[in-house]
C-alpha cells in the first residue's frame, strides 16, 4: 500500500482538476476545478516532505527529535492565499458575465461574445 501517498493522490487530483476544466462547461464548476488543481499541487508539496517519524516543526527542545522540513509548509501558506485570491477574483468576473449573459455556460458565453464582436465590426464598416 506504499503507493497510496499524498504525491500520487495529488497528481490524480491535479488531473481531475484538468478534466473538469476541459470537460465541464459551467464556469463556476470550472473555477472549482481550477481551485482543485492548485490545491493538489499544495498537497504534493506537503506530502513530499512527510515522514512518519517526524513531528511538526515547532521546536520543543527535546534532543534527538526529528522534525518535518518547515520550508515547504511556509511556502505553501503563500500558495494557498494566492489560490484564494485567484478564485475570488475570477468568481467576480464570472458574476459580471452572468449578469450580462444570464448563463454560466462557457461555450454559450464565448459564442455570444464572438457574435457581439462581429456585430460591432460590421457596424464600424
Amino acid at each position, binding site marked *: 500500500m506504499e503507493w497510496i501517498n499524498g504525491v500520487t493522490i495529488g497528481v490524480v487530483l491535479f488531473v481531475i482538476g484538468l478534466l473538469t476544466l*476541459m470537460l465541464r462547461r459551467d464556469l463556476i464548476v470550472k473555477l472549482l476545478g481550477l481551485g482543485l488543481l492548485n490545491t493538489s499541487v499544495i498537497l504534493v508539496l506537503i506530502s513530499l516532505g512527510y515522514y512518519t517519524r517526524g513531528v511538526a516543526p*515547532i*521546536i520543543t527542545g527535546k534532543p534527538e527529535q526529528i522534525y518535518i522540513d*518547515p*520550508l515547504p509548509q*511556509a511556502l505553501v501558506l503563500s500558495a494557498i492565499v494566492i489560490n484564494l485570491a485567484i478564485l475570488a*477574483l475570477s468568481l467576480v468576473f464570472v458574476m459580471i458575465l452572468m449578469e450580462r449573459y444570464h448563463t454560466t455556460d462557457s461555450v454559450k458565453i464565448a459564442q455570444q461574445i464572438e457574435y457581439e464582436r462581429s456585430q460591432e465590426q460590421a457596424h464600424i464598416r
Partner: protein
Amino acid sequence: MIAGKRLTAQKTIAVIVALVFLLVVLFSFSFIGKRPGAGEEFIRQGVEDTGAVNIVAAIYLNYRLFDTIFEILVFALAVIGVRFHLHAVKGKRPALKETPFLSESNVVRVAGDLLAPVVALISLFLIVTGHLTPGGGFSGGALLGTGILLLAVARGGEQVGRSLNDNVVDRLEQIFFVGIIALSLLPPLFGRPLLANFLPLGEPGHLLSSGWIPLYNLLIGGKVFIGIWAMIYCFIRHRGDV
C-alpha cells in the same frame, strides 16, 4: 460550434491528453526519492536566529518575508479588485432589507450571538500566538472575517454593515496595508538591512519574543480580517441579503 460530433471529438481528445499527462507524471514521480536533511538549517538555527519556536512562522515572517509581502499584496489586490468590480455591477442595488431573512427564528439569532464571540476569541488566540503554536495572522484573520458572517446571519447584513461600512473598511484597510509596508521599510533606521528584523528577539517560547513576528502577525491578521469581511460584505450586498 455545430454539432455534438465536434464536441465529443474534443472531449475524447481531452480525456486522452489528460490520461497521458497522468501516466507521464505518475511514472516519473515514482522514481523520486527524498534527499534527507533538506531544510535542516532552519531547524538548527531557526530559534537562535529569529527567536520563534514555530519554525514555519520564522520562515514565513523572517527568512522569507519578501515572499510574504507578495502574498499580502496578492490578497490586498484581490480585495481591491472584488470591491472595485462588484460595486460597479448593476450600479443600482436595492438597499439591504432591514428585517433579515434567517434571523426571524430566535434559534439562529441566539446561536449566532453565542458563537461569534467564541470564534473571535479563537481567532485572536491564533493571531497572538502565531510564533509559538500553529496559527498566525492569516488563519486567525480569515477565521475572524468569516466569523463576522455569523453575526451578519444573526443580526442581518445591514446592521453589521452599518458599523463596518465602506468608509471604516477603507480606512482600516489602508491603515493595515500601509502599516505592513511601512514596518518592512523601518529596519534601515535601526541600522539593519531592509526586511530584516530590528526588534529584540527576547526569550524563545514567551509571548513577547521573536522580534517583529508577533507584530507582523497582528498587522496581517487585521488586514486579512478586514479584507475577508469587505469581500463578504460586497457579495452580500450584491446578492441583496445574507
